């Protein structure tokens, strides 16, 4: 599974990188970015989902595979 942030939707609310700093980081403007290629393992998937369910802009997507 893979997580991504849609940069057109992200407004830098800052929830994802606070909730899951191992998965998300921020750029110079404070917008969220995914660390690495966003591949999730059994442990990180729950955290990524939690971040997703806290994003006020609905900008986080998790692709099942």
């Amino acid at each position: 599974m893979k997580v991504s942030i849609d940069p057109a939707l992200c407004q830098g609310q800052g929830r994802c990188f606070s909730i899951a700093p191992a998965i998300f980081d921020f750029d110079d403007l404070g917008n969220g970015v995914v660390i690495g290629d966003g591949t999730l393992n059994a442990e990180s998937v729950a955290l990524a989902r939690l971040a997703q369910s806290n994003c006020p802009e609905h900008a986080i997507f998790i692709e099942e595979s």
Partner: protein
Amino acid sequence: MTTKPPVEDFATDWDHTDPQWVNNPYPIWEELRERCPIAHTHRYGGGWFPTTHEMVSAVANDTVHFTSRQVVVTNNKFPEFAPPAPMGGAPPITSDPPFHQIARRIMLPALAPGPVNALEPQIRELCVQHLDEIAGREFVDAGSEYAQFISPGVISRMLGFPPEDEDRFRDFVHLVLDLVDLPAEERAPLFAPMADYFSRQIDDHLANPRDDFTSYLLGVEVGGSKLAPEHVRGTMVLMLVAGIDTTWSAIGAAIWHLATHPKDLERLVNEPAIMPLAVEEFLRFYAPVTMARMVKEDFEFFGCPMKKDDWLLLGFPAANRDPVAFDDADRFIIDRAVNRHAAFGLGIHRCAGSNLARLELRVAVEEFIKRFTKFELAAGGDVTWAQGQVRGPRQIPLHVLAS
């Protein structure tokens, strides 16, 4: 003081400065959400108030039909292209696309988590200093003796203003945010001292550039030219107005909550690890900031006939209590794990200071409950809530039970 008739029906005659709304708006919003859910008023020259999360989000994301030209509801509507369009009086909050993005991008790097998190030790020190002054007392006012000092201290340092001017900042903010009820011709002249003050600060920074946000704004170049002076001044005003009252209200509301909910206080004292969740729930439940938009052209919005230049009161706090968007929306759950609140707005105007505001709120509450581990509202003490679009307790008289 102007006297206005009290509101009898908020669905057809809402007024966010009516004492009922100021004291406790939540039951009003709940009723409107069920009955309307978009309320109307003829006051302030006419306006609308949507109460659901869906509608608030739709307005915030619709810059085609709504303009941010004026974001504070007053008795004075400016004409459409009045200068300083397109930036508006306080860019970027009063700017629309495409200018908005230019004005916003200038601010974002300074307010991103990197530079903001570096301020934590300074903010903590500021909190501790103010707590030292009230330490050991049985009765303290957590509003006027604590909460109100934190954000002016932080913002005036960022802007590079003399710290001794903080009382003046509070007056400026009061003028912009609270005195919205005054007739236009009484309100306008009150802005002169504020404009003078900022001009003097700008002159001083031009003569003596230093490492602060004011000098940064004066030096920044967009497309090869410096910002217009009214842009710089507008953004500085915005930092003060957006950065002070808002955060002070959030800190005050959090402490007020803890004073009135002893179990939550006890839990937060004993389980500091839940603080990040508590901060988000304070922000959701007591969201201090309501914004406004103006309707750009006649159109129908969720069945309501909106007219050009109508106000639209943008109730992020009301959206945060919508049961469709939140489980148990009317319950404060200190460790709520799923909390998609809109306290910092939604869409392109998302609060540029949200990283700073969160940090101040967390540190101010952490230090307060470290110093005072048990407290309640003092018997007979009056809690007054600020009127207008920024809501928070101004006085929070506490009886300290353990420190």
